[in-house]
């Protein structure tokens, strides 16, 4: 079974985030990056499926600073092939652009399943999984927590709110947006990553024409603005209810 896992990296929150001088982006000078947690889960699920049914796992990522290490880490965890999609993909690349670029490359590859993280912390305009599925014309299920493959079909569990789950049967090839892998993503020791750098080849493929994509742009980036504080209400239940009603009336919120 051939599984593709598009991954991306996101700022590591170990350092405090600062806004840059333009006011539209993070100050990236000292930023550390790490693999998007949900993509890590997608990779783990892909590796588990490979261990179950055999096959090959390919990790793909768009070119960006430091992405090689993220890809080699995927190899250290067990990915068989690595593809870096080259092009102008700086931070803040719109999700539509990213999805189109990936689709350009993926449409020339053979695969049964594409697994990618359900979302990333810095996604602004949508999630790659479903955008990519539509650019490729693939059936998709996102927010998936369980995957079983049998022949030409996958049976997946999709999470709804309130702890409700739905089971879907999907024809392959398909795209799955992974919420959580069946196990915690495995860890790759630094020595294994170094070994991967030496022994795994990283294939570079140009994104080609991405075309004019519909997207949004960041006008302003700012830290959450703190509110005016909270008010603690005390008294009996009836007294508290009266106070709440008064506050609602004062603030002019119509019932």
């Amino acid at each position: 079974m051939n599984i593709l896992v598009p991954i991306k990296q996101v700022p590591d929150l170990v350092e405090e985030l600062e806004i840059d001088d333009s006011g539209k982006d993070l100050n990236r000078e000292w930023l550390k990056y790490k693999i998007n947690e949900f993509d890590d889960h997608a990779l783990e699920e892909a590796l588990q499926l490979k261990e179950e049914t055999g096959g090959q796992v390919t990790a793909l990522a768009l070119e960006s600073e430091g992405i090689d290490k993220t890809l080699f880490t995927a190899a250290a965890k067990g990915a068989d092939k690595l593809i870096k999609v080259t092009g102008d993909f700086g931070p803040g690349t719109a999700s539509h652009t990213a999805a189109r670029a990936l689709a350009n490359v993926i449409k020339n590859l053979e695969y049964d399943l594409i697994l990618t993280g359900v979302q990333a912390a810095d996604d602004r305009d949508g999630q790659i999984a479903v955008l990519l599925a539509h650019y490729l014309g693939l059936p998709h299920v996102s927010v998936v927590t369980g995957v079983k493959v049998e022949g030409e079909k996958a049976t997946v569990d999709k999470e709804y709110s309130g702890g409700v789950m739905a089971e879907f049967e999907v024809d392959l090839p398909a795209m799955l947006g992974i919420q959580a892998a069946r196990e915690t993503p495995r860890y790759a020791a630094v020595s294994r990553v170094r070994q991967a750098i030496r022994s795994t080849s990283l294939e570079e493929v140009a994104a080609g024409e991405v075309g004019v994509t519909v997207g949004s742009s960041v006008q302003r980036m700012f830290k959450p603005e703190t509110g005016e504080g909270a008010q603690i209400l005390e008294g009996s239940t009836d007294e508290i209810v009266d106070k709440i009603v008064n506050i609602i009336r004062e603030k002019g919120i119509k019932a």
Partner: protein
Amino acid sequence: MSDVFVVAEHLKGNLEDVTFELLGKGRELADALGGHLVGVLIGHGVKGLAAQMGKADKVICCEDTILADFNPEAYGRTLTEIVKAHSPKVVLVPSTSMGMDLAAGLSVDLDLPLVEKPYSNSRG
């Protein structure tokens, strides 16, 4: 067209809370845009839920047995056709598990910009 569409979400015969949140916000947007607020209800046997969407000026309901349970493909295609037929200015989709399987597809199939998870907005 300055209409605002709100895609209702329902599970097991009930509208999810997020639908009402979106209708509230949708009302504000529709009023600011000078258009109508239209609810979109897709499913089977859900017509009765339209009555709960009172904030909307009207509700478009599409029912079929194939839409009885949420399905990314069936709901996605239905929603795309509805939006294509009416050309609303803004479509609000819940930022939920179901919504995630719908919004991006709408954006690609109809070439519309998409912004996810806003918690406040203002017209510019």
